[in-house]
């Protein structure tokens, strides 16, 4: 069981989350050339080791997360909201409580 420390919900089983995919992909503008879209949609670096990926806390707070995880050991190094605005909100609240 991978345990993911959701910035909103705390440490939860990965079965509450859905794996998204490679978070290092920058999806191009909607009208970008086909080659850019091809690379973003179809090609993967497929890192063996530490990679940046997205997960959604589907059965929890529904937040999309960026996770830095080792794809061999499954160790997780960092988790943060994919949406910067969400990150700011949660960070500010954490500051306030501490």
């Amino acid at each position, binding site marked *: *069981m991978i345990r993911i420390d959701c910035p909103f919900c705390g440490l939860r089983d990965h079965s509450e989350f859905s794996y998204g995919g490679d978070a290092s992909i920058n999806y191009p503008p909607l009208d970008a050339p*086909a080659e850019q879209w091809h690379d973003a949609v179809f090609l993967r670096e497929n890192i063996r080791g530490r990679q940046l990926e997205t997960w959604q806390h589907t059965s929890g707070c529904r937040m999309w997360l960026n996770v830095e995880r080792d794809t061999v050991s499954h160790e997780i190094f960092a988790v943060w909201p994919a949406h910067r605005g969400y990150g700011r909100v949660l960070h500010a609240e954490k500051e306030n409580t501490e």
Partner: protein
Amino acid sequence: MTARRLSTGGLIDRTQAVDFSWDGNPLQGFAGDSLAAALLANNQRIVARSFKYHRPRGIMSCGVEESGALVTVGDGDRRDPNVKATTQELYQGLVASGQNAFPNVRFDVGAVNNLFGRFLPAGFYYKTFMGLPPFESGSGTGYWMWCENIIRKAAGMGSASRAPDPDHYEHGHLFCEVLVVGAGPAGISAAIAAAELGLDVLLVEQDALLGGDLLGQSDAQASRDELLKALAASGVRVMNRTTAFGLYDHGAAGLVERVTDHITQPDPNLPRQRFWTVRAQQTIVASGALERHIAFDNNDRPGIMTAAAGRHYLNRYAVLPGQQIVIAGNNDSTQIVAMDMAAAGAEVTLLDARADIGDSTALKDAGVQIRTGTAPLSARGKTLNSIQLARGLPGAWQADEKLDCDALLISGGWSPVVNLISHRGARPQWNADNACFVVPEEFDGVRLAGSAAGVWQTQACEQSGRHAAMQAAKALGKTVSEAPGVSIGGWQTPIEPLYEINTEGRKSKAFVDLQHDVSSDDVRLAYREGYVSVEHLKRYTTLGMATDGGKMGNVIGLALMAEALGKDIPAVGTTTFRPPYTPVAIGALAGRSVSEHFRPLRRTPLHDWNLTQGATMTMAGLWHRPWYFARPGETINEAYIREAATTRSSVGLCDVTSLGKIAVQGPDATEFLNRIYTNPFAKLPIGKARYGIMLRDDGIVMDDGTTWRLSETDYFMTTTTVNAAKVLTWLEELLQTRWPELRVHVTSVSEQWAGCAIAGPKSREVLSACVHQTRAVSNEALPFMGVIETALQGGIPCRIARISFSGEMAFEAYVPSDYGPAMMDLLYPQAALHEGCLYGLEALGTMRIEKGHVTGAELDGRVSIDDAGLGKMASPNKAFIGSVLRQRPELMRSDRPQLVGIFPKDRNATFNVGALLCAADEISGMGEGWITGATHSPELGHWIGLGFIKGGVDAWQSKIAVAADPLRDQQTEVEIVSPHMVDPSGERMHG
């Protein structure tokens, strides 16, 4: 006279006799017995037959490593095959029987295999059975499958019931700071120490009793009581009869708790077993060590067991395993066994392969005969009656005299149970001094303690447990005083590695993996044939693949392969241990998610109302939806045709609640919709709905539905039933990961609203009789694609859109779910006034096929918007998700299969969905297209279909196609027509 129950001693309760049945014979044991102990006490020597050669087998151990005493427990639909008698607690009325034998385990005709054993070496089946013997001539798989049929019946072990398991199981969740596995001296000490440091500790033990090795010691009663008292006072949560079967990522452990397997008539409210998932911050594995066997001729004879097992039977169960007992080994652990056996009154001879065994005064004082430099060479008797001895040094043995005996207790050394930590990926390392595999002291929050860490003495194990607890506490940020660690080992005289005993050139049947009948010769054959890596050895010979997981034999197999290769054991490697540590019932792992609760059933608010009206339900994802509403005597076909015809001629009502519904809210909602739909949303007025199609990134159609504009910033989106969750997640992903600048919230409101479609020429009349203000649904107030928020009579809030899936004038009305039945109670009597009806999915399908409206059957994840005939909905004036990749060359070809309508050439003919559309002159190959929908059209009076065909209608204007359906022996000539088969101009829905 061999094994017998003693009149005193042990941890059994002699006041509680327990009746049980073995192979149909009534026997008696005591409360506290294991089945194996009770069988032994009743002097049942042959209790099983081996897998391949059907050799007689007895009880070989007293625990999970058992590879001999596999029996079937229970009968009928509660039959459990392959139960290790050593781990089954005895209870009143237990029924057990032998397996893999005919007529019984004592006399088994299958034993003829043993005579042919020379022709059945490891892997022989890879070399034959291919074709007719002797030279395997022939072709195809027929001959093999004929042989396989016989082989399958001979293979297998016990026989499982084919009836559903009548018991139930459940899953549970546990959290703790420290999980301790194993309640022997090390585990209990670790748990107490961790609890004393203020940690929340969970201690699990597979046995019914706590104490581990202390249970087998003759003089440990007091120290065990003391430990248990301290444990009870410590606040540790203790679970017995609970096996930690696997360790997984991030401190997760799987446990299985046997709740009622030891109870004659359990409380029916209790599950048979519980599967627990534990999340522990730190784990201490104190799972002990298992004693190994030694390979020598006939080392599998009933009457031969491990030395520690003999001691456990004596001290825990008060069963003396024999009267003339020989104990043979290569390490110090046999000495205490010999003394205990002698003290219990047996005639004891201790064989030790080592020349020097240290101070043996105590042994001699106890009356034990000692022979050093001696080992068993061969066992005699169908059940053991004597052994041939070998003398000398390991590796160069000489045959010696014969010795009569009725029990032989073996110790080939000890293997720490490193399985659990190995599940996590830790690699065991060979420790030559102690002749065993050990693992690092700590691996990713998992620590070993006690004999699992290679520590042999009780006191040292306790210390090792405390040390592990301190280390775990430290890792959790506690300030702790240092507890000294304990080093591996602890014997007075070093172990002499000993894996096989034989003399030069002597033929022997010496088993390495006893359950799978893998012999030392099989290992050498694997070597000769080049299957030398551990993984090849294991797979080729099946060594270690049996239900005991090779707990006794794996190390011997490795050692023999190392010897054949002329290398040391580490060079051969170690096998990777896979979970579960001991086999786990599939039922336990499934828990309560079985039968009708395999997946939850999703009910619309109208579910019960529909059933009351006579609905037959069908599945749509997790939902149940009305399929049709048959009137008395009607078939499904009659019902759906009537429903569709009634709807087209008057009015029909249909539960559409299951459509996905998403609230899209916020200042940028319009811009958001404009990006995700192919068609423009920027100018959709408030109070209007629009049909939209969304594509995936790769330009293929993802989903469709209508979106209603309720206010400047507030939309109500519907999706297909099946894709509702997928679409919501997709929208959230876009908003949170790609377009953070958009201020939009999406929320599922699928459960908030009950929906009903009111379709047909009389639909407005029905609706207007039910709304609070009749004018609200007039053509002016609610034109085609109009949306209003109003109320039904009785003040039920309601939102209505005039949209049509059936092609008739139609409305979708949504009320808050708790009012759903009330809405139907208003609508249905009004519909009845017009002789309207309720309709289900089948009639819905008929009407949408008539209109050429696509559903999931067409939008199967491979279809482009152009294929579906909706290319006009892809705006050329804006970019949207999928707008670039949908224009890839292969997707733009004009000869791609396109959506069409299908008529049978002979209007009385029919065809099936799933038939292929072929050119009339080539009814073979991949075909030109396929049929996705088919129905009788009441409107047209004949069978019609929807499907895809290369080039679409234009390419097939004057050509006949054939709907080929060899699966159902049907071939129908068809005409390809426009998919809009009824009211193509849409007058009815606009009218």
